[in-house]
């Protein structure tokens, strides 16, 4: 729009006649919108007034605050609740902001509190140790008792590095005291006199040595006391110190004095002898009252032989520790050697650290348990950290053990490894021997199992049969080799028993043989008797063969009068020896 004016759309068909400045239009507007226009104007006025007021207030606010704050504390009281809730709201919303803001204040305060606490703790421990066990401690107790002074004060007197006993804040021009702080145990009501004298002395020194303002007396000592004087334009801060004040104390005084000058500038200007306005400076003075004890006292001050007090227990302790270490080392070496010697255990890595024994290695499943071995050596196995990978050891003892387990070797059989042959000896059931001999796959460690020395032990039923057979004795008349008719029945049942024995042993691969021992009594010649015993064996064999016993299973052993049986008397003995006796022999069936 070139003229910046808006032409409304022609709703009413007034185009061409429309002039917003005409009187008619104004009237129309008044008629239609008069009330609303007035309200609008009033509202606008209010809005403008408000922003104008805000501007004015903004202009005046700082001054107003300064003015009112100077007059009374109403403003602070009025603002306090708002400030408090503003701060708590701010903390609630973003604690980080406030934390960052107050950190510079809190940090040093916390550090200081911690440092002081720690220092006090260390100092009290040090002193307790130092004084409890030392000759000096005893001497001090004696001194306390002798002088009637409390022990604590004696300790303080001796252990003191320095102690600020009094602090004077003195008006520089008049020498009048503005403030005074003293240790609680000091009762001095002469602060005014001392302040005056201190000022006089300052002046005296300055005048006497023609020093200018900046060259004032700062320190002087009397016996155990040192007076530190820090002078400012309006006031002097003097500290009476017992002991050796450090440089830091002077800096502290400077700092406090500067603070006082800053905070009490108005009070200094108005000062005319009334120290009341400076009462507020008392905390600053009291801060300067400090006591530092000798927890960091130079070593030279200690008796020359003091180290002995520490050296003896230290040497003892060191010796004890070395002894323990040596014992521990020896026990460890023992344990390692013992495990290395143990069959079936191979140590790959053995390491010892504090309270822990660490082993890595190989272990045959049949080897002894390492933990048990170590426990047997008296080692504490709770700290044992061991990992063993299983492997098969060819150590003879383990080969034997493994064979014993794999072959279910009876306890009555002992095993012995010779080269690659495992020799078995003793007595074993027929079944076991048969099974062992029949094995095609042997456990590792040997390739031949020799069971020849193992006596076959018959099962119970076969044992009964054998016992029956061996209990029989076929008797003969004097000089006769004729089997009596009543003996034939005995021989028949014997043959039956033997056949049973034969078939029983055969199932295990064994063969039963029957030995027949022919005997004679002692009468007659040996040659005759030998022949007679032979005849008797043959007679019995004939009966048994006829009863179905294969002749090759029978072995005749004519003894003659050799190896006779014994009887109750000679008559009975002669009778017993005119006989044939039996013995069952169970042997392995020779391989076919």
């Amino acid at each position: 729009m070139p003229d910046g004016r808006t032409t409304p759309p022609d709703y009413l068909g007034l185009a061409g006649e429309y002039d917003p400045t005409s009187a008619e239009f104004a009237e129309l507007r008044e008629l239609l919108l008069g009330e609303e226009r007035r309200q609008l104007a009033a509202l606008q006025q209010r809005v403008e007034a408000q922003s104008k007021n805000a501007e004015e207030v903004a202009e005046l606010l700082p001054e107003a605050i300064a003015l009112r704050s100077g007059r009374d504390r109403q403003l602070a009281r009025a603002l306090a609740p708002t400030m408090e809730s503003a701060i708590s709201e701010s903390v609630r919303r973003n604690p980080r902001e406030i934390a960052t803001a107050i950190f510079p204040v809190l940090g040093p305060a916390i550090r200081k509190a911690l440092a002081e606490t720690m220092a006090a703790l260390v100092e009290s421990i040090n002193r307790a140790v130092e004084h409890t066990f030392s000759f000096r401690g005893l001497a001090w107790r004696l001194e306390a008792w002798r002088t009637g002074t409390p022990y604590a004060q004696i300790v303080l007197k001796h252990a003191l590095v320095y102690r600020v006993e009094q602090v004077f804040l003195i008006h520089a021009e008049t020498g009048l005291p503005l403030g005074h702080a003293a240790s609680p145990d000091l009762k001095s009501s002469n602060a005014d006199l001392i302040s005056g004298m201190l000022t006089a002395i300052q002046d005296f020194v300055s005048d006497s040595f023609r020093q200018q303002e900046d060259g004032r007396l700062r320190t002087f000592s009397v016996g155990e006391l040192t007076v530190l004087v820090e002078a400012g334009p309006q006031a002097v801060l003097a500290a009476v110190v017992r002991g050796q004040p450090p440089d830091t104390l002077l800096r502290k005084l400077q700092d406090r004095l500067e603070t006082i000058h800053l905070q009490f500038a108005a009070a200094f200007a108005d000062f005319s002898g009334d120290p009341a306005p400076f009462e507020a400076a008392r905390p600053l003075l009291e801060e300067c009252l400090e006591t530092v004890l000798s927890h960091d006292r130079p070593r030279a001050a200690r008796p020359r032989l003091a180290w002995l007090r520490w050296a003896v227990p230290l040497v003892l302790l060191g010796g004890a520790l070395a002894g323990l270490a040596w014992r521990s080392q020896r026990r460890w070496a023992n344990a390692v050697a013992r495990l290395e010697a143990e069959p079936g255990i191979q140590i790959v890595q053995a390491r010892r650290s504090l309270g822990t024994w660490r082993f890595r290695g190989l272990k045959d499943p049949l080897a002894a348990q390492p933990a048990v071995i170590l426990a047997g050596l008296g080692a504490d196995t709770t700290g044992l950290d061991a990992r063993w990978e299983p492997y098969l050891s060819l150590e003879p003892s383990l080969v034997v053990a493994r064979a014993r387990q794999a072959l279910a070797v009876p306890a009555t059989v002992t095993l012995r490894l010779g080269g690659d042959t495992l020799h078995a000896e003793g007595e074993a059931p027929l079944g076991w021997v048969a099974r062992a001999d029949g094995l095609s796959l042997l456990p590792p460690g040997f390739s031949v199992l020799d069971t020849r020395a193992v006596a076959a032990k018959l099962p119970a039923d076969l044992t009964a049969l054998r016992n029956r057979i061996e209990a029989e004795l076929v008797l003969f008349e004097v000089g006769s080799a004729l089997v009596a008719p009543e003996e034939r029945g005995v021989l028949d049942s014997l043959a039956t028993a033997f056949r049973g024995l034969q078939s029983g042993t055969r199932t295990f691969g064994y063969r039963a043989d029957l030995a027949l021992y022919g005997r004679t009594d002692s009468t007659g010649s040996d040659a005759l008797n030998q022949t007679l015993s032979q005849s008797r064996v043959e007679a019995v064999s004939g009966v048994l063969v006829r009863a179905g016993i294969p002749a090759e299973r029978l072995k005749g052993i004519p003894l003659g009068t050799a190896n006779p049986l014994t009887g109750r008397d000679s008559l009975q003995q002669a009778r017993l020896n005119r006989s044939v006796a039996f013995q069952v022999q169970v042997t392995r069936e020779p391989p076919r």
Partner: protein
Amino acid sequence: MIQKKVCMVGLFGTGKTSLVQQFVHSIFSVKYHSTVGVKIDRKAVDVDGTPVTLVLWDLAGRDAAQDIPASYLRGSHAILFVVDGTRRETFDQLSELQELARAAAGEVPSLVALNKADLAEQWVLGQREEAALAAQGRHLLKTSAKSGDGVEAAFSWLARETIRDGGSAS
């Protein structure tokens, strides 16, 4: 408690120390005069119910060998000049001392104590001298260290003056 510094000034032997000895609290011995040149005492005074502590700087008497250190006078709220009524020269040098005091402490209330009033027969000061002082606007008071006459009055007057003069601001 309002405190005021009051200097006592006079020639050697005018009896300043003796004058106040019985009336003040002191912790320092007389030998301070010969060492530091000043001895400080305290005197509590009551001015119409207001307790005032006067810290008295008892300055060593001036003699040929020793001048009064101006620095001691600095900041005084009042000055007590002491003249020995039996020794003329102590009076003669008064104006010199007053000048010294004004230079160091400014215009402060002061009182001239004409001491040793008990030695009437040796008294050398007459009406003329007293009138001359009064004419200068000096306040005079006869005192006696021996009898104690005038001492309390001197302190009371000084205390009152310091309160009226400089104490109004505090």
